[in-house]
C-alpha cells in the first residue's frame, strides 16, 4: 500500500521549500504526506531488509512523540488532519516493517514483484511426499475422532505432533534462508548493484516467501487440529 501523494512544492505555512521531512525546515510546521517515498523513507531508512529492530523501535517512538494527534489538539483542523495522516502512516509503516516477513512482502510489492492476494499456494516439489503423508494423518485423525476411537486418536495425535515438529523445523530453515537473502540484498544495495541483480534477488525472495507461506499454513493446520481451537 503506497503512501498517498499530495505533494506540494512549498510549505503551506511559510511558502519556503519544506525540505522533504515531516516538518518544514523553515517554520517547523507539520507537512502533508510527500510523494510516494514509502515506509522506509518515512523512517529515514534505506530499503534494506536486515534492519536493526531496536533502532526501528527508537525511531518509531521518537516520531510518535512528534506526530501524534495529542500535539495538535489545539491546532486548526487542517493541521490536525495532517497529524492524523502522518501519525497513521507512521503506525502503518511500523506495523509492516517490524515484522521481517511483512517487511519483505512490502518491499517486493513496492517493486511490483509481488502482488497482494496473488501468492502461489503450491507445494514445493521436494516436500510433496511429506505433505501427502501429513494430509493423510490429518484425515485419519478426524475420522478416528468421529468414530470415538480414543486409542487410535491418541496414536495419530502423536504421529501428527511429530509431523508438526518436522514442519516447524522446516519453517525455521526457510526463515534462515530468508535472513540470508536479506543480507545478500542489503549487500547488493551497498555496492549499487544493477537492475538485473536486484530483480534476480527479489525473484528469489518471492520464491522463498511463497514456500514459507505454504509451510506456515501446514503448521497452523496441524496446531489447529491438535488444539481443537475454534476459528478466530
Amino acid at each position: 500500500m503506497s503512501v498517498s501523494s499530495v505533494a506540494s512544492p512549498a510549505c503551506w505555512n511559510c511558502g519556503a521549500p519544506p525540505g522533504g521531512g515531516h516538518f518544514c525546515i523553515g517554520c517547523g510546521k507539520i507537512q502533508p504526506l510527500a510523494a510516494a517515498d514509502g515506509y522506509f523513507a518515512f523512517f529515514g531508512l534505506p530499503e534494506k531488509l536486515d534492519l536493526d529492530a531496536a533502532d526501528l523501535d527508537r525511531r518509531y517512538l521518537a516520531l510518535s512523540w512528534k506526530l501524534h494527534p495529542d500535539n495538535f489538539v489545539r491546532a486548526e483542523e487542517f493541521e490536525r488532519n495532517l497529524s492524523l495522516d502522518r501519525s497513521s502512516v507512521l503506525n502503518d509503516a511500523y506495523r509492516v516493517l517490524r515484522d521481517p516477513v511483512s517487511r519483505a512482502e512490502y518491499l517486493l510489492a513496492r517493486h511490483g514483484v509481488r502482488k497482494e492476494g496473488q501468492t502461489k499456494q503450491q507445494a514445493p516439489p521436494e516436500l510433496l511426499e511429506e505433505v501427502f503423508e501429513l494430509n493423510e494423518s490429518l484425515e485419519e485423525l478426524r475420522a478416528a475422532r468421529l468414530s470415538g476411537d480414543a486409542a487410535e486418536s491418541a496414536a495419530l495425535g502423536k504421529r501428527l505432533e511429530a509431523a508438526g515438529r518436522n514442519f516447524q523445523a522446516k519453517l525455521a530453515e526457510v526463515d534462515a534462508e530468508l535472513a540470508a537473502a536479506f543480507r545478500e540484498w542489503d549487500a547488493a544495495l551497498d555496492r549499487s548493484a544493477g537492475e538485473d541483480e536486484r530483480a534476480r534477488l527479489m525473484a528469489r525472495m518471492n520464491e522463498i516467501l511463497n514456500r514459507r507461506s505454504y509451510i506456515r499454513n501446514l503448521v497452523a493446520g496441524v496446531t489447529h487440529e491438535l488444539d481443537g481451537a475454534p476459528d478466530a
Partner: protein
Amino acid sequence: MSRTVGIDLGTTFSLVAWVNPETGRPECIRGPYGSTLCPSVVSLDEDGRIVAGEPARRRLLTQPERTIYSVKRLMGRGVADVQDELRLFPFRIDPESRNVIRVRLGDRFFTPPEISACILREVKGWAEEFFHEPVTRAVITVPAYFNDAQRQATKDAGRLAGLEVLRLVNEPTAAALAYGLDREQRGLVAVYDFGGGTFDVSILKLIAAGEGDIYQVLATSGDTHLGGDDIDNLLLDLARGEIRRDLGFDFGDYPESLQDLRKALIAAKHELSHADETTIRFLLPGGLAYVRRLTREEFERRIAPIVDRTFGPVRQALSDAKCKPSEMDEVVMVGGSTRIPLVRRRVEELFGRPPHVELDPDEVVVLGAAVQANILTTGVQDTLLLDVTPLSLGLETMGGVVAKLIPRNSTIPASAEELFTTGVDNQTGIDLHVLQGERELARDCRSLARFRLPVEPAPAGMARVEVRFTIDASGILQVRARDLKTGQERSADVQPSYGLSGPEIERMLVESIDFAEQDFAERQLIEARNEAETILHATEKSLADAESELLDPSERASISGAMVALRQAMAGTDYRLVRERTDELNQATTHLAELLMDRAIRSALEGKKLAEI
C-alpha cells in the same frame, strides 16, 4: 476561563474528575449528594422535565415507566441487536425504531445518545458547581472493545451535552495511566476491567523514553455485554423462579416491586464480597415474604460461568500480544465486579501474582481520563498513550466476503488506502460497505456504513478512485475519497448503519437548545401569570371597597382598561407582555392603593384612640 474534565460514562455509574494544579494529581469531583458516583439513570418527570443521577435513581422505584438505567448497553446498536437485553432489561423500545433505537420515557421518545447526554450534562453540572466556571471540553472513556458505532454514539452524546470531546480513551488504558502515576516500574501490565455492563482486558507495555512515559497497548479484547448486570440478572432469574414456584407469586403486574427485588439482590451480592453468607429478606406485594439464605459458596458456584466468560478474551489478548500470563510484571483490577473474591482469586491464579487493588476500582478509570484531559489541554506532554483498535476493519467484496484493511490491535491512528474502479460502462457510482469484525463473511461482521462513490460516466475500468480509511486516535473511522483522474476530493456521503446522521445530530442540538429556552419561557410565564392573578384579585377587592368611590370616573376607567388588557395578555403565552401589563395595572391603581392605605392608617389611629379611652 472554561474547564476541561475527564468523564467516565459508565453503565451503572458515571464520574467526573480533574487534575488539581496545586497537587498535580487527579481528583474526583463530588455531586450534591456527597458521592463521586452519579447513577447512570435518567427519568422524565410529570412536568416533562429530565432528571438525571440520584433523583432519577429514586424514581426507578416509584416511576419505572418513566425511568431508564444501563442505557450504555444500547449505545450504537440496532433493534435486532438488543433482543436479548429486552428479556432482562425493562427498556421500552419504539417498535418503529430503525437504525437508531428510540426508547420511551413516559410519553416521549429518546435515542441512547440523548439519554447519555443527560447523564453527561449532570456530571458536567457537578464540575461547573465545583469550579464556579463553565466546563466545555472533556475526555470521555469508553470500553476498549467498543466498536466504531458505539464510539460515535458516545461522541454524539458529548456533543449533545454541550461538550467538545477532545478524545475518547479506552477504559483499561485510562486505568493503567492512573496506576502508572505512582510507580517507577516499567514492563508489561495486564488490565482486567470487569464493570457493570462490559468486560475489557488490555495488555500494555510501559516504556520510559527520553521524552517521558509511553503507554503502548499491545492488544485488547473484551465483551461489550458482560458485566455485573449479568450477575444481577442471574440472581433475579433465580429469585423470580423460586418466588413463582414456592410462593405462587408472579411479578407481571408489579414492575416497581421487581425493581425493589433487584435492589435487594444487588445488596446481597455486595454483602457476599466480605461476608461468608447473607440472608435475603423481601416482602412481596400482598404480604408474603421471600426469605433466602445465600452462602458465598453457592453464589460463587452460580456465577462461575459468568466469570469464566471473561477468560476467553484474556487468553485472546495475551495471544495477540504474543505474551504468556506469567510474563506480566503487574496486573491491575478495574471495575466494581472485581470486588468479588472469586474474580480476584481466578485472576491471581491465571497470572500467578496478586493483582493491584489499591485504587478504588470505581474511580481509577475517571482519574486516568482526567490525566489525559490535562495532557491534552496544558500542552505539558510527558506521557503518551498509544492505543489500538479492538476490531479489524474491512470491506465487503464479491460474494459477501470481507477483505481486511486494518487488522485488529493495530496502533491508532491507523489507515489503509484502496483503489477502486468501475466494472461496467457508464457506471455512475461505486458502492462500498465498511465492516468491523474478525469473521470471514460480511453478514457475520458489524456493518459500519454503506456509501456510494460518485464517478464520471466512462468505459468500464477507466475510473480511478482512491479511498483512504483512517481510524483516528479515538478509534473512530473517517473516510476520504479522491478521484485520481481529476485529483478532486470526492465527498463520500457515509450513512452510518447504526447511528445518528449529521443532520439528525444537528436537529437534536437545535431541539435541546429550543427545549432549554422553551423550559425557561414556560417557567417565566407561569410565574408572571401567578403574579398577575394576585394583583387582579387584589384590585377587584379594592374596587369593591367603599373607599374606591373617592376615585374619579377617569381613574376608574383606566383601571378597568388595564385589567382587561392584563387578562388578554394572560390568555397568550408571552411572559414579557404579561409582565408589562401587570406593571401598567400597578401604575393605574397607585391612587387607589394610596386611598386604601390612608384609610388603614386612619382606622389604626382611631383604634388607638379607642384603646386609650
